[in-house]
């Protein structure tokens, strides 16, 4: 009986684990500061290492902004992102310039989200993870924490 409970609990826990993207503990302070001012500091696992390399090499023209970081912080942020990057074969191509929201993984995970939610002024951009994933800042992207019902006004 005890075993059965354990299996049942494990079954409940597994889907949640799949959508946990906790920030690796060795994230440099400069990563959160530099990459977390205009948008959430995105989990490194959401892009492949070569795509992070492309992002880091193009910070002076970063989606319309000059997001240059100091020469002291640049290598720290780059190696952090690359060492925790996701697998390109699982994520799918991110396009050029690379966008997390263009990877097949992102598209597959969000295919059921109607267009009007993306256009909601509180969401504004698919890069605004926290608009729907209330726990995104803590790495929680589980389906149970989604604030979408609020958008159904």
């Amino acid at each position, binding site marked *: 009986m005890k075993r059965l409970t354990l299996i049942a609990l494990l079954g409940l826990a597994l889907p949640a684990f799949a959508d946990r993207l906790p920030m690796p503990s060795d994230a440099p*302070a400069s990563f959160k500061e530099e990459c977390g001012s*205009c*948008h*959430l500091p995105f989990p490194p696992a959401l892009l492949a290492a070569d795509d992070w390399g492309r992002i880091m090499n193009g910070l002076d023209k970063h*989606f*319309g*902004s*000059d997001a240059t970081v100091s020469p002291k912080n640049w290598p720290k942020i780059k190696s952090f992102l690359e060492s925790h990057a996701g697998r390109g074969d699982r994520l799918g191509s991110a396009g050029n310039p690379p966008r997390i929201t263009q990877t097949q993984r992102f598209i597959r995970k969000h295919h059921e989200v109607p267009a009007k939610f993306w256009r909601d002024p*509180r*969401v*504004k*951009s698919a*890069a*605004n993870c*926290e*608009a729907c994933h209330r726990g995104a800042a803590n790495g929680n992207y589980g389906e149970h924490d989604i604030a979408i019902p609020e958008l159904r006004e």
Partner: protein
Amino acid sequence: MRALPALLLLLASLASHAETPQQIRQAYVAEAAGQQAGFAPSAKRGETLFRQRFAINDKMPACTSCHTDNPLSAGQHAVTGKTIRPLASTANAERFTDPAKVEKWFGRNCKEVVGRACTPAEKADFIAYMSEVR
């Protein structure tokens, strides 16, 4: 374990160079006075700068595009949608306390929104407004 993030934050705040908005403003005032004798900062001019529509950048024509018309309120990034904490130090005690951070964001935002670097006089005026607005 729960105390660890708080402890790390405390250490980080000790490591960075903390000042008051008045001290940071004063450094800009001194710099401006070197270019313009008798310069005195003005919160009113700072407010005009904050509200001016520069229209250099389609998505961010003015400071208010992200920071809203009320610097005491939270804003929203015009491109990413991320919530931005209030800009006024009267509403957000963290504002204008780290000189390097202040200089970095004046650098980025003036270039993108105003279309040029802001002058020390403009920076002093801006901080005067942000530390007096209520």
